[in-house]
């Protein structure tokens, strides 16, 4: 899940994970930006970075912590714990970590990759589906292209080979599908259109656009005159209700324009999610969104 900050990426990710789990898939929600939203959404769950925590039946969540993932990686490579400590404590290593472009991104995407390829004892995948809540657009695209870049700049050596294996999964349309999330707002739509272009240029498998927070088609155009007539009468609850209805109608029309721009600009299948007006976004709201998402996906075919 990729998109501008504030468009509801985390919420949509959680809704997708919940829908997949309900459909019988063992699903893992992966939080990359480290804002701990999952722990807040699923009350009582403690989502950390060491092991996936259960959030609902068949639904698990985990965070990716760069430092922890680096140590884990080094332990896997060097096998000997004291060597890992020697390396992570040396100043040279920290300079290397700061200077090697994209190392945090590589380690992050590498960690996600290990979840993607993890197998059970019977050789079946541990996870049927991973839902990755990416950081905001620019950082998210950097994350997805980083293994490809490393493959290119590293020349030879183990890191290059690992990067190539990671990139094979990230860039394969049968393995990975990138969904670009937007809201019906000027900036979010233009950023989504640009992201679709950037991902295609880099050969990354962009699969769908999600328009989150669409104001439903609540009013018909032929109802406008009556609403306008009532709104123009003396101030009071009825005229104010008519004015609120007119504002919704205007929003409805604006959303139609955004929907068209997103679909035409990204040339992607569009999944629409309704705006849920809540004083507090809680688990019940998430379930409603998850149901709407499942419905929209089944109408659209596989995104």
């Amino acid at each position, binding site marked *: 899940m990729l998109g501008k900050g504030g468009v509801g990426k985390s919420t949509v990710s959680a809704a997708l994970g919940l829908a997949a789990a309900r459909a019988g898939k063992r699903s893992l929600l992966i939080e990359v930006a480290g804002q701990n939203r999952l722990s807040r959404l699923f009350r009582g769950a403690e989502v950390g970075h060491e092991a996936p925590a259960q959030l609902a039946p068949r639904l698990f969540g985990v965070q990716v912590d760069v430092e922890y993932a680096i140590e884990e990686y080094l332990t896997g490579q060097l096998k000997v714990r004291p060597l890992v400590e020697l390396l992570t404590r040396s100043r040279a290593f920290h300079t290397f970590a700061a200077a090697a472009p*994209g190392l945090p991104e590589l380690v992050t995407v590498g960690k996600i990759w290990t979840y993607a390829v993890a197998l059970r004892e019977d050789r079946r995948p541990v996870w049927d589906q991973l839902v990755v809540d990416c950081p905001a657009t620019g950082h998210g695209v*950097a994350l997805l292209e980083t293994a490809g870049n490393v493959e290119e700049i590293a020349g030879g050596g183990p890191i*290059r080979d690992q990067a190539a294996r990671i990139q094979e999964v990230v860039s394969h349309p049968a393995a990975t599908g990138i969904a670009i999330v937007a809201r019906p707002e000027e900036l979010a739509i233009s950023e989504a259109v640009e992201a679709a272009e950037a991902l295609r240029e880099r050969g990354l498998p962009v699969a769908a656009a999600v328009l989150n927070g669409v104001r439903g088609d609540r009013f018909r155009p032929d109802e406008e005159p009556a609403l306008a007539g009532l709104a123009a009468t003396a101030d009071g609850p009825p005229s104010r209700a008519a004015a609120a209805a007119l504002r919704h109608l205007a929003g409805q029309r604006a959303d139609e324009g955004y929907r068209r721009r997103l679909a035409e600009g990204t040339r992607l299948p569009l999944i629409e999610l309704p705006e849920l007006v809540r004083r507090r976004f809680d688990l019940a709201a998430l379930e409603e969104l998850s149901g709407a998402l499942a419905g929209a996906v089944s109408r659209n075919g596989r995104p």
Partner: protein
Amino acid sequence: MIEAVERRRIVVCCGAGGVGKTTVSAGLGLGLAHRGARTVVVTIDPARRLATALGMEGLADEPRRVPAEPGLGGAELWALQLDAKATFDRLIAREAPTPEARDRILENRIYRHLSGAVAGAQDYMAVERLHELVDEGSFDTIVLDTPPSQNALDFLDAPARITRFIEGRALRLLLRPPLPGAGLGRRVLAAGTGTAFSLLQRLTGAQLMRDLSDFLAAFDGMYDGFAARAKAINALLRSPESGFVVVAAPDSESIGQAVALGRRLDDDGYPLAGLVLNRVHPLPPGGLAQPEALAPALAAAGAPEPASLAERAAASQREEQILALRDLDAREALAGALEGAPVTEVPSFEREPVELEGLGDVAAALAVAGRAQRAASTPS
């Protein structure tokens, strides 16, 4: 809010992604220009219509004057969009001791990835561009819209991060083993770090370490210049000549981040000028219409299906009230959390403020002095 940042040379707008930093930056810039300050707004990634409104088509790395419109009067507002790669290239060109050293860096494979693709480079370049504009001295006020990042304060740490990396003494030492004639101390140090080096090389392969070595070697003699720039801009950002504006949207998560950000700024000695609560839904006056009372009124106005329309209109009115209540919760959460920092509210506009006219409305809302906050512990 505008009054609180007037006569400051640098105004930094920060906050989580998606709260409307760019719009608030542009609104502040417009308001300051109206008050006679020659102002430039440094935007990071404006939406196309906003860019058009500000007179920028495509990447405009140099300030361009916002076309004078009736709404702008004689005010001088300028805008530019950050081009991180161009800024980085200029910095290298300025700091490199020789043209050869400059070219060695600009053509290095690692540099090309570092300056273009890596997300953190944008943070650093935003600060560097700010430095350039201060040096040029052609503006009274520079309004900086900060880049979207995982941590809203990443950009403040960026200069220190980059100087640490340029410094890279330990790594350089290991990458270039000392000559036999080198002093004993240096040889001992090299022997100690030799193990770390061979471990790293086992992981990365020799080629990457060689490229990295070339890259770091190319920065020889530039460290002092980088460190001096980082120090100078940091001192300016902490001085009363700067003002930080924290932007928040009225939801609990954004509020939490804004409060954390405000505290961190305060703790680290950056002058917090105030908070902006953006896109606030006003509480509608009076009570809600009952569908039963609404239906006859709609029928009288000629509605085709008054009963159903009344239900739906009442739902819209109820939703507006819910949004207003949600925003009240946010306002409560913000009040008192940051003692002394005034909060200015910008209403949620029916039409997104992406044209100069809409920005004028934002500027007008920002012109209202922020409510000074009551102290959290001492009820007034």
